[in-house]
């Protein structure tokens, strides 16, 4: 099934454009600029009184969605890593050991 080990020279270079170090930096730069841009846009909306037709007044606050997205993801990752993982992580073969159903030998 797996047909591997094609030599690296055969690989089209176009596909590795975004793996080059300087391009990764460019992509990240673009991300930072875009993020800044949306905050500026939100501030402009706020200053000009552009009506977003919000259901909640929070939605009209500049940067509400930006801050929410950032904070939500940080909280998500920190809770997953420092709370959930210590609670639920087990060895990869956790279910394969000691279970007669999956043919574990330790029962014998």
């Amino acid at each position: 099934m797996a047909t591997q080990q094609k030599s690296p020279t055969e690989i089209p270079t176009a596909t590795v454009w975004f793996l080059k170090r300087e391009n990764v930096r460019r992509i990240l730069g673009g991300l930072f600029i875009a993020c800044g841009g949306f905050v500026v846009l939100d501030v402009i909306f706020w200053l000009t009184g552009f009506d977003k037709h919000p259901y909640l007044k929070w939605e009209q606050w500049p940067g509400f969605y930006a801050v929410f997205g950032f904070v939500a993801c940080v909280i998500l990752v920190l809770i997953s890593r420092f709370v959930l993982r210590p609670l639920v992580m087990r060895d990869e073969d956790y279910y394969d050991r000691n279970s007669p159903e999956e043919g574990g030998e330790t029962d014998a």
Partner: protein
Amino acid sequence: MPEALPPSLIFLLGALLVPFLRGRVRQGVALLVPVIGLVNYYLITKGVHWKVELLEFELILGRADSWSLIFLHVFTVLSFIGILYIIRENEPLDLAAGLLYAGSAMGVVMAGDLITLFFFWEVLTVGAVLCLLSRKTTASGNAAKRYLLVHVFGGVVLLAGLVIHLASGGGTAFDKIILSGPGPWLMFFGFGINCAWPLLGAWLTDTYPEASIGGVVFMATFTTKTAVYVLARTFPGEPVLIWIGVAMATIPIFYAVIENDLRRVLAYSLINQVGFMVVGVGLGTALSLNGTAAHAYCHILYKALLFMSIGSVIYRTGKSKATELGGLCRSMPLTCLFCCIGAASISAFPLFSGFVSKSMIMSSALGEGQVLVWLALLFASAGVFHHAGIKIPFFAFFSHDSGIRCKEAPLNQLLAMGIAAFLCIFVGTFPNAFLYPALPNLEVAYEPYTVAHVTDQLALLLFSALAFTLLMRAGLYPAEIRSTNLDADWIYRKGGPLFYRLADKGLNGLNAAVGRRFLGKVVPGVTNFFESGGPRFACLIMTPIWAIQRLSPEETDAARHSVFRRAKHGAFPIGITAFFAVILLGLLSLLMRF
């Protein structure tokens, strides 16, 4: 114009026929079935079709309205994509399983009464089990057993609810049911098991990653979405569903962040997305129900696309774990592109399908004043971008170079993914072309492309991406670790064997103890009693007589011995037997007098 046929009939007949064909004919017929299904879809007119009398019940195989037709459409399209994806291998069992699964799902959505619904509901499980077995590994075989265990249980719960509902005069109508009394509650939970509710849905993340690469495409499409459809039909506006949906949308994303197996990450995000739909059903407004139908439609396409792209990675590399993959965009650029389109769709980027459907449910939550629900869903939206939108493509195709060099996915897989990717973008960019006019409640208009919606959504997503980048750079992002994360499936995967061992030790111990006590002591005692009790009694009666006769101790012993022996063997002289018989008859005749 030719008459339309029940779509389930077309697919089930196809599933029966396919295993008996060979080579190209088999491939042709398998692909033709969904095409016929699609043509048939356009022939179906709205209304109630195909009624069958069974005993005193009237079974309705075709209730065609906008609810059932939108689901039928996406199921038909997806079955074509799914069959195309696996057509190259030409495995009779896999093709038949896909068609059977699709046919039963169509049977559920077209069902007009609860009995037809139940019948096809059970066939769904058969389809899923076949999709698991088609992987042909020990792990997938065991997963199939666990899947069967859970869904047979769910089926029994549903059947119990159905029987109670019928017996208490609820009728067989497959329409809104009031959630009160044991019948409706049992049915509610029966549906909930297939819908992967919290604690009831661990079967999904447990078994989906074990299925074959094509099988999981069908599994991700049919079981949970038919459950959403059935809930939307029977329990719309049931407030408890809002909170069930919120739990589904939020809890799995934490698991998804620390999960290593990419198909399991997708399974978690599947539950997360179905959570949005369940919230939509729970809110029960015209807009939220539209949102549920639209989101189910879009979700089926992009989730299938994501599962197919990771499936192609497995097909070429045999690996699905983040720790073993990375840098595959070099070798599989097209698969990578399709995966990114699926990721953008599930993340609800503007111009991609999730954007035009998910927001309906969220707007409806705000419209109903459910601010907490809205905040939870917004959190889930940021989270789904984080783990499905970034993590899946990043760890498979970018990230560090795993050193794997392989061929691009085969043509049929690329075509299948290409069609799904095209539909994701088409539906997302032109929602008014097909999706919105097909929604159940046309009286509410919804416009996703407002300046505020687009900019707010982009800000949310870009800052989520920023958070991912910064956390990665700071080394705070949880490293991918080969591990198993406990979930509610622990209850039957560990609890089951524990119960087995407890039962083994407990019941077999009891058995042994009983064996020792009862068989070892009581039974011999009883036997002894019945064997020598009579003779002993006889000896006891004779003892005073012997005392009167003044026999010596030796003579008494000899007499006792003789009586005991005769009594034991029943060897008394006829005279004595006759004497007792006469006494007995006398007693009987005396008794008759009274």
